[in-house]
């Protein structure tokens, strides 16, 4: 049944009780009816005036629009006559640098809320009974919500939708950030503003000192590269970095820059004997089981980085680990099962990174554990791994390593990846960067701080040490005897502090967003469908707010 917008006031003309002291009742009724007729006419005229007023307002707004359109058309006609094809200089830069045309589409939003109710309906609404005054109870509530919201909340569904959208944007952004975590170039632009566990940032810092001064220029360079067209940009990058000598890191960083997908970076283990590898893996496997309360621990068997020929390798392994966590949290099934298998997928993405560096079309990077078996048999042909990079150890991969010597950088690796290389300590169980898992991160963070203190220790000691540290924490009250544990306490406090800050930040963000459907939707869409570069701009803008 449709809602009545306007109703004429006295509905029934003569449905009134007659006074008793009347002799001529018929005349009385007639008079009463006539009086009601007059009242009806008055309400009719009131509604007619309201109706014409609404129509007039709409038409009036149209006159403004038409006038402005008229002016624009006049201006355009003048400028068209002034157009001179010879004057126009079209450079390649102009074509690529110019912002693409976007027409301004106005989205209708918030159509059916209290303020947009038409006047006659508002008057009808005012006539109704009010809801019970439950808001007088709200000062006595613990959770700070309004009492009336539990009885009737007109904005309930909108709030629900908005929360969902914002949460989705946050999730997507965090996913993207994890992907970008492997790119040390992004440190200044993204990492600084992230509340990552301290170790990740600290570990990254010393190795990135030479890159930090470069990072601010990146954007301009990127734009300049793109100015000449996307096709030419890749060539420039190739030429630049082919020659660089200790260019392990540079090529690495470039590789990562090219990526959008999740990748495990160039990563390799030395050509260890299989038994030693297995030992390593099993030890780290034990360590993972020593922390039962941590949510499905990303298999620390996975990144046993056994060889570093340069220090960047270590940072690689550390930075890669958080990126791997989402994959392993999702596909938790065979984490310890194929211990020798985890290393081979890294060479696949490594190969693909290398191939991308050369500008060839990379095969799609398969999700790791489920695709390990098929991934190994086809030996990655363009195995271009920079010399500073760790190599896959297991024998099935070693032959392909040696079989593709044609790639320039690869030549350096087999000789250097000898058995005499020092094994770095197994990288820490990847600290979970998700805020929801903060409770477990103190334990995860126990790993990394112990790691830097054993830079070149033997393999056996770090795992047992970290195992010790790790097994201490489930008991919740470690004796404060070590300097390490003091550090860990501080870190834990730091993490808790960050949690509160993050909450505050989120609340502030929600307030800022307000009820603008358009902005919420646009953010969500931007996060989901945009390129990584748009994502950068968007991220920065948003974080800067």
């Amino acid at each position, binding site marked *: 049944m449709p809602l009545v917008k306007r109703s004429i006031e006295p509905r029934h003309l003569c449905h009134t009780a007659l006074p008793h002291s009347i002799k001529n009742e018929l005349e009385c009724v*007639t008079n009463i009816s006539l009086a009601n007729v007059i009242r009806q006419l008055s309400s*009719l005229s009131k509604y007619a005036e309201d109706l014409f007023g609404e*129509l007039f307002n709409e038409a009036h707004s149209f006159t403004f629009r038409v006038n402005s359109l008229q002016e624009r058309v006049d201006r*355009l006609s003048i*400028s068209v006559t002034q157009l001179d094809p010879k004057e126009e200089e079209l450079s390649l830069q102009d074509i690529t*640098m110019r912002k693409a045309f976007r*027409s*301004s589409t106005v989205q209708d939003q918030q159509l059916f809320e209290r303020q947009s109710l038409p006047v006659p309906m508002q008057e009808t609404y005012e006539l109704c009974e009010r809801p019970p005054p439950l808001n007088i109870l709200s000062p006595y509530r613990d959770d700070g919500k309004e009492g009336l919201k539990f009885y009737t909340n007109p904005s309930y569904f909108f709030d629900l939708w908005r929360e969902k959208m914002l949460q989705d944007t946050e999730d997507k952004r965090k996913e993207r950030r994890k992907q970008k975590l492997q790119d040390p170039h992004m440190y200044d632009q993204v990492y600084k503003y992230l509340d990552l566990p301290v170790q990740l940032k600290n570990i990254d810092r010393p190795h990135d000192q030479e890159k930090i001064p470069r990072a601010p220029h990146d954007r301009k360079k990127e734009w300049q590269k793109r100015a000449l067209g996307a096709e030419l940009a890749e060539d420039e990058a190739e030429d630049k970095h082919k020659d660089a000598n200790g260019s392990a890191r540079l090529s690495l960083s470039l590789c990562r820059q090219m990526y959008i997908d999740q990748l495990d970076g160039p990563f390799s283990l030395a050509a260890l004997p299989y038994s030693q590898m297995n030992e390593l893996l099993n030890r780290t496997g034990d360590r993972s089981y020593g922390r039962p309360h941590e949510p499905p621990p990303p298999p620390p068997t996975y990144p046993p980085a056994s060889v570093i020929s340069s220090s960047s390798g270590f940072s690689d392994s550390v930075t890669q680990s958080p990126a791997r966590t989402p994959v392993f949290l999702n596909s938790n099934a065979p984490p310890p099962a194929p211990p020798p298998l985890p290393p081979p997928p890294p060479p696949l993405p490594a190969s693909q990174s290398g191939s991308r560096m050369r500008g060839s079309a990379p095969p799609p990077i398969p999700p790791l554990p489920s695709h390990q078996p098929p991934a190994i048999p086809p030996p990655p042909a363009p195995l271009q791994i920079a010399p500073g990079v760790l190599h896959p150890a297991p024998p099935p991969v070693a032959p392909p390593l040696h079989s593709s010597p044609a790639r320039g950088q690869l030549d350096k690796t087999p000789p250097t990846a000898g058995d005499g290389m020092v094994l770095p300590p197994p990288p820490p169980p990847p600290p979970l960067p998700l805020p929801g898992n903060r409770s477990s991160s103190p334990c995860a963070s126990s790993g990394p701080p112990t790691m830097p203190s054993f830079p070149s220790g033997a393999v056996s000691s770090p795992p047992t040490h970290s195992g010790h540290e790790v097994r201490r924490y489930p008991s919740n009250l470690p004796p404060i005897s070590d300097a390490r544990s003091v550090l860990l306490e501080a870190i834990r406090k730091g993490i808790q502090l960050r949690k509160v800050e993050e909450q505050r930040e989120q609340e502030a963000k929600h307030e800022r967003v307000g009820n603008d459907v358009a902005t919420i939707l646009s953010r969500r869409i931007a996060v989901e469908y945009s390129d990584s570069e748009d994502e950068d701009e968007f991220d920065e803008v948003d974080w800067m707010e």
Partner: protein
Amino acid sequence: MAGQEDPVQREIHQDWANREYIEVITSSIKKIADFLNSFDMSCRSRLATLNEKLTALERRIEYIEARVCFKSLTRVCRTFFV
């Protein structure tokens, strides 16, 4: 008997006349209300088509402006991006 009926009949007669009068008035009120409703609906539909045409025109003009006078626009874009 005729005398008794007469004033009553006269009253009833008068009453019927009054009722007919009131009926005429109320039916014309209903006609006015109907007219107002239909006028409102038709006006709104016309205004809506006008609105559509206006927005289409505005978008076209924006596009043409962008095509025609890009020099000023490039200056604007450069200030945004660099």
